[in-house]
Structure formats: C-alpha cells, structure tokens
C-alpha cells in the first residue's frame, strides 16, 4: 500500500499539470475562435443591437450630458488656473483674497451673477444685506470687509453717460446680400 501510494503522488501531480495545460490550451483556443467569431459576426450582432436605437432627441441629450462630463474632467485639471489675471473656472479677477470670495459667493449661484454686476463699495454692501435679509445669506463675519474690498476694487462702476455708443469695435461686419432677403 505504502509503495503504491508513494508511486501515485508523482502520477497525480503529472495528471493535474497535464489537465491544467489542456485547459489553458482549450481556453486560448476558445478565446481565439471567439474573437474571430466575434469579428466576423460583429456587423450582424450590432445590427440586431442597433435596432433599439436612440431617437435623435435622446442621443442629443446624452451627447450634451457627455460633453458636460468631459468638460468637467477638463475643469478638474484646470481647477485653479489663472490666465491674464482671470481665474478661469469662475471668471473672477485673481487676487490674494480670491479664495474667500469664491467660498462665500459661489455656493448658491455661479460667479457669473457677481461678475456681471458693477457697484461702489456701498452698492455691494447693499446687495449683501439684501441677500441676507431675503435670500438666506449668512453673516459673513470677518470675511465681509475682505469681500467688499475685493468687489469694490475689481467691480467698480464705469461712467457711461446717458447712453453708451454702440460698441463699434465689437461688431462683426459682414456683407448683406439683399437679393436673398426679399421676403
């Protein structure tokens, strides 16, 4: 019995090694055949799958959302990038106190609502008071004077008279083809 047992061990090891090898070969073959098969059948399979097509509207929604998430990825890479003195992500002017402004002023609305506006320090103060009284803006504590200084410095009013000139430099001049337009 002992002798036989001793003999069996190497035999068993060889057998399992053999079957492992066979399995590997089978698996590889299966993969190769599978891949070839898939490449051959890819067209027809896709045709079947594509029968459940998106409508153009659905695709458009998806693609817009996808573009958003792609640009979000890009945004992450450029989180605090500054070009020509402008903090790209928010559009704010760069400044040592910018972080305080971003932290206090961009949680409810985007910075665009801030940068569109121009006012004196008192004017900015009145907007903050309005937001505190009616829109749930909390007390800004020590940050308030820092924020007011920042806003009054970069977003001060510009005198424009009773009516601005048309901004002729900003116009995109083009030739109007009048024959095409007779309506």
């Amino acid at each position: 019995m002992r002798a036989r047992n001793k003999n069996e061990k190497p035999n068993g090891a060889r057998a399992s090694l053999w079957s492992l090898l066979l399995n590997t070969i089978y698996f590889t073959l299966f993969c190769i055949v599978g891949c070839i098969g898939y490449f051959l059948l890819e067209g027809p399979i896709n045709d079947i799958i594509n029968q459940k097509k998106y409508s153009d509207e659905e695709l458009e929604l998806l693609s817009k959302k996808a573009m958003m998430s792609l640009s979000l990825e890009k945004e992450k890479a450029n989180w605090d990038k500054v070009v020509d003195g402008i903090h790209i992500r928010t559009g704010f002017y760069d400044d040592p106190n910018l972080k305080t402004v971003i932290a206090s002023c961009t949680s409810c609305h985007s910075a665009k609502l801030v940068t569109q506006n121009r006012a004196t320090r008192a004017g900015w103060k009145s907007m903050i008071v309005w937001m505190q009284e009616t829109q749930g803006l909390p007390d800004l504590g020590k940050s308030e004077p820092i924020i007011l200084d920042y806003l009054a410095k970069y977003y001060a009013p510009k005198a424009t008279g009773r009516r601005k000139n048309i901004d002729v430099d900003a116009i995109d001049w083009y030739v109007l083809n009048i024959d095409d337009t007779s309506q």
Partner: protein
Amino acid sequence: MKSEKAKGRRKFMKNTIMASFSSIVGMPIVFGSNMPKELLPIGFFDGSLPPDLIGKSNLLTVLNDRPVNAEAAAHLLDDDLTPNDMFFVRNNGIPPVNVDVNKWSLTIEGESAKQSKTYTLQELKTKFKQYTLNLTLECGGNGRSEFNPPAKGNQWSTGAVGCAAWTGVRLADVLRDVGIKSNAVYIGYYGEDTHLSGDAKKNTISRGVPINKAMEEESMIAWSMNGKDIPLLNGYPLRLVFGGYPASCSGKWLSKIVIRDRVHDGQKMKGKSYRVPCKPVAPGAKVKDEDMCIIEKMPVKSLITYPKTGATIKSTEKLPIRGHAWTSADSISKVEYSIDFGGSWHPCELKNAKNRYAWQRFSAKIPFPEEGYYEVWARATDSNGDRQPIILPGWNPKGYLNNASHRIAIKVI
C-alpha cells in the same frame, strides 16, 4: 432613409457619449458606441440631465448658468413667433426635476377664494374652454445693462423678450369656477422650483397681479407653447401668462394660486424687486423701500430683428429692415426709423396683431444718401400715445423698464 449628414451627426454624438463613458470607467469601452440602451451605465439616462441644457438653443447668450438666465441676440428673434428654443430664460431658482404630468395639479385658495379647489392638469384641459393667444413676455429687467450708474441683477441686453402662441385656459374661468369673494384684491402664484440656498421652506419667487388683470380675457393658464410642450426652463408643464406685465408675474411650474384680500406679499413682491420709484429720481439716487411702487405695466418698445447689426451694403441698394413692436396698451399705432441719429423719422409698415399683447411686425426699405457709417434706430408709439425715448428712460435702482430705441450699425460702401 436618413441623410449622410444626419448619420454623421449621430455618429459624432455617439462618440462624445462614449468618450465620456471611458473617462468615467477609466478606459475605453470597446464597441461602446454600439452598446444597447439597457446597458448604459446606471444614472446616465434617467432624465437627470442638468436642466440648464434641455430644450434651449446653444445660440442663446448665457448671462448666468446657476440659476439659468439666458437671452437671444436681436437677429435671433426674427420669427413671427419666437421658437421655444430661442425664448429667453429668467430663472430665480432651480426648476423641478422629474415632472410627472399625470400627477401635476393646481390648487386655488386664499382669503378671497370662496373655497379651496384642486384641479388635475387633465381636468383643466377638459373642464374649461381652451384658447390659443399670441402673448409677448418681457423680463422687467430687459435692457438693464445700459443703466448708469449700473443697476443690480442680471445684465440683460435686448433679448429678454419673446412672443409665443400659448394654449391653455382663461385664468378668469378657473377663478370663477372656484368663486371669488368681493373683497379680492390680488392673485399670487406658487411654483415648484426650489430656492438656490437649498432651503426647502424658502420660496424662490411668488409674485402675482391685481385681480382686474387676472380677470382680463388674455390672462391665461397655459400648458402649450407654439403647439408644443412648454420647455422645462420656461415652466413645463403649467404656467401663467400675462402680457403687458413684467414676465416675473407669469409664474412658472405653477401649482398654486392664491386669491388675496390684499396685495400679494410673496417672495420678490417687496423691497426693490420689480418695483420702480413711485416718483422720478435722479440717476444713482437712494430710494427708500416705501417709496418704491410695483411695476404694473411694461412700456412701449421695439426691436430690429433684421438685418443683424454690422451689415455692409452698396450705396445703390435699399436696406430692408424688419422687427417687432409691443406694448401694454391696446396696440402699437406707429413705428418709425431714423438713420440720422434721431434728426428725422420715417414711417415703417406695421401689421396688426392677432390679439392684444401680441407683438406686431414692422418693416421698411431704407435708401441711404451717401456712403458712410449709419445707425438705424427704431421707435414705436402705442395707442395711448406713449413713445420710446432715444436715450435711457428714468433711472431706477434695479434697472427696470429700459425701452430706449433699439439701434443697429450699418456701413454703406
């Protein structure tokens, strides 16, 4: 069969979608563009698209993306009726998500309502006579960017206006069905948008109109815009529409109307919001809240929608222009143009409106005396005899009601 162009577009859209999948999964998804709908990563097609993009043209100028405020350049408003995707957006908060039209309802109550009554959308559509009217909506702050000293808020240029064919029921029919007490003064609305601060108890905006305005034939509860669902950003599935008033009175995502025995006191009815000094003030003046009065009519105004500013023409040619004019009065009686900075004015052709508060088309063919730089200015006069100013009208702290003449630049060579 789809055209090649359409196919190419579909392919392009599929590619962007897949590129973004890959960035989420961290590697390219092989054959990803063929992935069937059911296999899309969860959350990708659950209608959770950020509402700021749904149903709007990418030609709009976005003044603010959170909350969304977007307007159209003048030449984009050339259609007789403003297409849904070009109609301006003035959101004060975050629009509702996952709107279920089958569950949507409108409740009417308030001190001066004889009862509290709730209608499903279906009931509104079947119980009352339906009307389709062309009504102009203009944001009270349209033109704000021109005021000096600068006025607070979104800096609208000229595009926070549009005229659409609205289908719905008369507000008056619904209010009468509920019953109005004789002491009714005002109606106020509540919508399903949420406040920017995330505070669920805070109303974003809750404004309204005097009861007389509410009972006018043209005052509507609408569910359709130009024959289609109202875009989500413009109030889907239900909104009020009042021509001649600041558009902020025409509540979006409408779920409740209160009939009040006093002037409605909801969010943005008080302080300086949608109010102007009761008496004219000097530019930059400090005005106390109690000296501010609610805006109850939008002024006469016009917009040149063709050609786009910046046209160059030959001196032998006549320049065709056209646009729209609108007012809170009964109608526009006259539109004129000037090419000499207001020195002389010439009449435009003017079409009648389908109904009150619809904008009216004007057009003209303009000869120029010699080569040079010109501005074409347009000014409208309404049936009350009110006329647009050519410089800025009365300054007010929040920069409302700028109806100064629209101007486009032209070169004759």
